[in-house]
């Protein structure tokens, strides 16, 4: 299992579109992937789960993955956050 602390850069945080992109990406990996924020832990493959976090810009969340492709998963998801979900230019 590996973990990474990730800062949310995009202005709107994990709103519907960003959450959809995130869960879509997470579903491409076989590892179990979780987001941990404010003592809540949700499955990163669940759109609704991510939405309930209501995590917004400036917050830090923890990405956690365990499984065969955990390293790739964390890298790809971290990259999506860093690209601000491709929603700002």
């Amino acid at each position, binding site marked *: 299992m590996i973990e990474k602390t990730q800062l949310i850069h995009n202005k*709107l945080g994990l709103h*519907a579109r960003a959450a959809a992109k995130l869960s879509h990406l997470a579903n491409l990996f076989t590892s179990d992937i979780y987001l941990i924020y404010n003592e809540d832990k949700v499955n990163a*493959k669940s759109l*609704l789960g991510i939405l309930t976090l*209501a995590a917004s810009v400036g917050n830090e969340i923890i990405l956690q993955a365990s499984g065969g492709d955990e390293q790739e998963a964390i890298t790809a998801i971290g990259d999506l956050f860093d690209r601000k979900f491709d929603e700002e*230019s």
Partner: protein
Amino acid sequence: MIRIKGKAVSPGIAMGRAQLYNFEKEVIRAENIGEKSVEKEIWRLENAVKKSRAQLKKINLGLQKIMGKDAAFIIETQYLLLKDSHLLDEIRGTIQNKLVKAEWAIKQVEKKYLEIFHTIPDLSFKAKSNDISDVLNRLIANLKKGGPAAAAQQPGQVILVADDITPSEAATLMSNKRLLGLVLNKGGETSHTVILARTLGIPAILDTVNATDSIFSGDTLALDSVSSEVIVQPTPAVAEEITEKIEKFRQYKEQLKNLSQLPELTRDLHQFHLYANIELPFESEIVQSYGAKGIGLFRTEFLYLDSKMSISEEEQYLIYKNIAKNIFPHPLVIRTYDLGRDKSDPQAPRREENPSLGMMAVRLFLKDREPFKIQIKAIMRANSSGNIRILFPMITEIEEIRAIKEIMAEAKKELQRAGTFPKKDVKAGIMLEIPAAVRLIRHLGHDIDFFSVGSNDLIQYLLAVDRNNSDVSYLFSPYHPAFIHILKEIRTEVDRIGKEVTICGEMAGQPVPALMLLGMGFTNFSMNAMAIAEIKRVFTQIHYARLRKVVGHLDRFSSRTEIEAFLNTELLKLYPELLQRSQGSV
């Protein structure tokens, strides 16, 4: 027979059978099942999911046909939610562990998430709870044998009566051709439902408060947008009257269609130009069929608010480019975000004591420049066809124009660096809405290319009157002598510096005020697309020279009532048939 008053938001007259929709919400009870039935319940759930996905896909396709790609945002979240395997696992788990029917399991899951979402302070997350309820209720409806008992599946044409309907319901109901009319208890003039109804020419009466109490499914209903009422079980005599009106309205629409082909000339060959105001991108595909020779005002607030402020340069660029292409070679004037005041901006920083004298439009953006600059960049970038112009609202003083010019220069530089700046510079204009700007036309005109008069706001700020306040709204009049004076000043001053001006408030789409403007020498008018044909009919039947003479006498009067009476009398003398109240105008 009873008559119910409402607000006509989409013109037309219709008569048909009433269909109550979605009114009696079914009560779902906890029903325990044996372990043997678990498999069956899960099978039912999976079937309902399949059906729901197919329905949402179909709705999306139907929407795309009438609205283009922009349709997606209406039901995107719902579709994504149904694809979320974890949501479905949770429902499945509830069925298995609690031994309940699928309906109850869905309700439990809905309840759980609604509770979570209601504790979230951020409004844009809260709004999502509507999507969750909408999609889960669709699932429940699909658990029934017949699927959702939507009016869409009733035979024959109906007039739909409901408390309110969701955008996805509106889209399904309207994109199949069976809907004759729409009656809603609730209101909302700018909702997607209303925009769809107008686009498709479906008469709609909203704000009836309690129509669902007095109408039963199967009742005969007549819907009349001219009188803004719904007639329940009309007597034979009234029904006959309505039938005649429907036929007249049909002929009238036919006649207007033909009008859209005529050249924009008065009888004495004086040229005028009619443009459309639009709010949603898809409208650009249809305004030309109403006779618009361009878009005089594209209000962009909805892009900003619908996207919850996250719309990127790229997304905007594609939207603007597409509209410009639809309307080419005619012009497209894009007004930058006019936020603040009553525009229900969730981003609004705090309650202001005097919102219409406070932070709005350009004032907001000179404080927080980023979203403004992104919009300007997107507009500049989209102008490869050369027919785009940019318009800045709520200008009070020259410093604002200087600041805007600075931002435009930065935006241009950034685009050039990125290699995405088209060769053509975009022309920039300002709105004349604040009387101070009118007095400064000759100074402001140095730095800008054109003007646009927002007559509603200009009247409001000139006369210090809120037209939505029924105690003072009588003062809100385009015939107020002070307003006429300011209109003349605009015409003279703009001519002096050799620039163009377009009138784009409500009065541009009302026959008598528009004739007055034409007589004053204004030639560019931008209005709701529905009004264009009527204005064209009136303008093509008059003589500019005669009109000019009539308007020349207005200086003699010192009161708005005298001016209004004089104009009406003189027009009636010159053209007795011209202004008989046209059928079907809202």
